[in-house]
């Protein structure tokens, strides 16, 4: 009834091409942004920031990045953890080498460096396809983690082999290091997440996004109609790695603060982000958010339920959690292979017709 295009007259091409063509969607979007920017920071505390909001925002960026590569361009990658590590270590080296430059710029530059590394590891995609490519990207995962573990230059020869984020401020508020305030860190991450989402959304519905999708659907056919596969695949790798690198940098610099590369950026991280986009929905920006929210909230809820309410031992809860995550993934794939985003799409279609069934 209220969810209609009808009566919402577009008088310019800009209006016609906007991201949210339906008025209700537009207001919902502004409302979410308002709550995220102006309400949440006043109520956020350490627990909420560290357990839910920060991981959600950061994983959302990583999921958007991977979704561009896998969901839009169809190149399956299992190297996300390794690329996140590149972002983290690039930020660390930049932070310690140029302490006067603001962390904000370091993170963007780290994203750029990750993009270059991503293109390097994306080169084989021109020859290798499908599963062979997925396995080939594992080479990036293992090689990069090994590199950061074994070459002391990357961790500034520290005795423990860890990297620790030094304290940095933005507008006088600490955003990294032990003294950081949860609301400042939250806002800092939020800016990156919203920026990434807007950038990704507009990239994927523009020329480049259409080229990626053509490559995904059938690369030979795309080549015949004039899409350059070399450029398209490599730009997908670059853009995807850029976002993933930013996510890795934020994960290290403002969320964890101290990182041991094998533990934090291991193969499990790659799978986790891949699960997020599969559960959320391949080829959808909203899906990236939904998947990230789902897989960040699920362990927290399960832990609260099993350990907090039922009082089970933590190791038992951890095993059960593994089973439930595995089971949910399978159930999701069987029930809705296109993910949460598809459920959302169906709901919107239904809403548009409501209260009539057809």
């Amino acid at each position, binding site marked *: 009834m209220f969810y209609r295009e009808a009566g919402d007259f577009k008088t310019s091409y800009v209006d016609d091409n906007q991201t949210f063509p339906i008025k209700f969607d537009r207001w919902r979007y502004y409302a979410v942004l308002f709550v995220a920017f102006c309400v949440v920071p006043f109520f956020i505390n350490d627990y909420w920031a560290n357990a839910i909001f920060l991981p959600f925002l950061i994983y959302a960026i990583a999921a958007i990045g991977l979704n561009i590569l896998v969901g839009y361009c169809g190149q*399956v990658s299992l190297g996300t953890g390794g690329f996140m590590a590149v972002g983290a270590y690039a930020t660390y080296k930049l932070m310690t080498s140029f302490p006067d430059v603001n962390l904000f710029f370091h993170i963007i530059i780290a994203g750029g460096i990750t993009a270059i590394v991503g293109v390097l590891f994306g080169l*084989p995609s021109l*020859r*290798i*396809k*499908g*599963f*062979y490519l*997925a*396995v*080939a990207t*594992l*080479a990036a995962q*293992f*090689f990069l*983690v*090994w590199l950061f*573990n*074994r*070459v002391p230059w990357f961790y500034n020869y520290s005795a423990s082999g860890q990297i620790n984020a030094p304290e940095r401020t933005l507008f006088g508020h600490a955003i990294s290091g032990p003294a950081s305030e949860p609301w400042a860190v939250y806002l800092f991450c939020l800016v990156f997440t919203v920026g990434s989402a807007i950038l990704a959304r507009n990239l994927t519905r523009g020329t480049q996004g259409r080229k990626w999708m053509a490559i995904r659907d*059938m690369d*030979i*056919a795309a080549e*015949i109609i004039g899409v350059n596969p070399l450029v398209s695949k490599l730009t997908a790798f670059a853009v995807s790695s850029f976002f993933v690198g930013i996510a890795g940098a934020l994960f290290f610099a403002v969320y964890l603060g101290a990182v041991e590369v094998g533990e934090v950026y291991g*193969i499990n991280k790659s*799978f986790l982000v*891949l*699960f997020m986009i*599969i559960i959320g929905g391949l080829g959808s920006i909203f899906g990236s958010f939904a998947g990230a929210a789902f897989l960040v909230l699920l362990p927290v809820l399960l832990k609260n339920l099993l350990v907090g309410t039922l009082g*089970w*031992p933590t*190791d*038992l809860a951890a*095993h*059960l*959690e*593994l*089973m*439930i*995550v*595995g*089971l*949910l*993934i*399978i159930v999701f*794939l*069987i029930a809705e*292979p296109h993910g949460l985003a598809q459920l959302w799409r169906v709901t919107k279609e239904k809403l548009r017709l409501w209260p009539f069934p057809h």
Partner: protein
Amino acid sequence: MPDQLLFGMEVFLNGLMAGVLYALVALGFVLIYKASGIFNYAQGVMALFAALTLVGIMEGQVPFAHLINAVFGTEVHHFGWHLPALVGIILTVGVMVVLAWLVNTLIMKHLVNQEPIILFMATIGLAYFMEGLGDLMWGADIKKLDVGLPQGINGVIDTVTYDIFGYGFFIDNLDIWATVIAAILVIALMIFSQYTKQGRALRAVADDHQAALSVGISLNFIWVLVWSIAGFVALVAGIMWGAKSGVQFSLSLIALKALPVLMLGGFTSIPGAIVGGLIIGVGEKLFEFAIGPMVGGATENWFAYVLALLFLVFRPQGLFGEKIIERV
């Protein structure tokens, strides 16, 4: 003969032995991939699960003891029996067959006609599930698996090589046994697929699903069969690796070792899995021996992948894979 060369030869031999074990895991992948087009990431976890089940049955552990104790407040741990290895293995094979049937009925049947990537993700979900299940059923502590295979340095090879080169090669008895058993297994599989009715049906399904279906081969049966065989191969791999380094979580990571083997050999070729396994086993051991110390060691983690990657750039379908033909 110079020392370096002798060491190199020893490393080479040990690499061959390790390669056989990689090939064993890769074999499980190839079997399922050929028959159903599913890239079964859970193969490594299946090996872990099989080994855990074998230990649990042999030691007479109560399944889900932790869970039962946590829910009902009881204190159950063991039934109090010790079974011989052979009985344990037979029972474990039974468990793996039941598992194969369950996987097919509950998961794969519902995912027919989905894209390969979705099937692949489903097997990752299965891997997570089985990892949790194995830990929940049998406990997460490191277990010792002893099925009666001899362990330790092989005296004969040591003395013979000492007599010839003046330096005794260190080769583990267990590795020799693993090689022999893997060879027997591969030969048995080949005989099975060449000379039995089920084996022929299996090859027919691998060749063309629809054609196989139209001449009256039950796809369901073949898929259960092939998952059972993969479960059996996983059990053998689990026994070998478990006897070598204990039954623990890291056992499931051998799947990651088998992936480059697959890439190198081709996803659809059994000889490819074996040759690929040997190349990777020898290659990574020799690389670690010759180059490893210069770059900080532990190159085994990635060398296999980089080797396979470089190789694929020149031959995208692997050594023995079917030629990839693409049409619009």
